[in-house]
């Protein structure tokens, strides 16, 4: 059974470490290994960073709503903003063989998560859903 914890932060990058702390707490309570936990944390952090940079274009006091659901064998994060929508096909990583800064955030999300989907089917903003199956990520089972 999935229990969910919700966290809403202002769109200021100084709150990213709070998001990481909350998720770290929840994942370690669920016996996830530190490595698996850090990867999921990275994805959520990248998603929030992108909202701050692109959807809210740097405005620091708009809401980012995050919900974490942890079931026995899966993790889901839903991240909602109320900022600029964009064509989700334009949100994409750069090819890795070009060594240059940028374009890595969405690459990490796609590489680590089993599902990453953007939904703009609403009046404002975007709902990003990321899922990960956890079968082999648990330290104890």
């Amino acid at each position, binding site marked *: 059974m999935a229990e969910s914890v919700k966290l809403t932060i202002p769109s200021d990058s100084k709150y990213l470490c709070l998001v*990481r702390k909350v998720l770290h707490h929840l994942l370690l309570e669920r016996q996830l290994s530190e*490595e698996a936990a850090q990867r999921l944390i990275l994805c959520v952090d990248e998603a929030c960073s992108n909202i701050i940079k692109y959807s809210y274009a740097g405005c620091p006091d708009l809401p980012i709503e995050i919900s974490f659901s942890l079931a026995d064998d899966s993790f889901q994060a839903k991240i909602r903003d109320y900022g600029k929508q964009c064509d989700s096909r334009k949100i994409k990583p750069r090819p890795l063989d070009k060594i240059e*800064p940028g374009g890595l*955030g969405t690459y*990490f999300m796609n*590489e680590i998560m089993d599902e990453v989907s953007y939904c703009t089917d609403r009046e404002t903003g975007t709902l990003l859903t990321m899922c990960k199956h956890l079968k082999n990520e648990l330290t104890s089972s």
Partner: protein
Amino acid sequence: MSIEFQSNESGNGTATLVITGDIDMSTSTLVRTHLTDLFKKKQKAIVVDLAKVSYIDSSGIATLVEGLQWSHNNNTKFRLTNLTPMVKDVFEIARLLTVFEVYDSQEEALEGI
């Protein structure tokens, strides 16, 4: 989140930058500033010690990639040491572990410069 920097410039043209804290969107610009300062000083080699960095995100990686590019342009060696497991894992996922010169300790990183 607070981040701290300690930089140490030796007489023989090498500089070490020890970073303490998480490198994320809120702190990577500070990392960038410290790196540009060191590059301006035309060092022979810059070693970044990441022993106390337990978290890095894509903005942190991007900053280090910039450092690497500056090092090519400036003919400066640019080396990383003491990657924590999380940082190492992120470099691996990004397939950058072999692109950078990565060492296990400051001593090894400074050898033969």
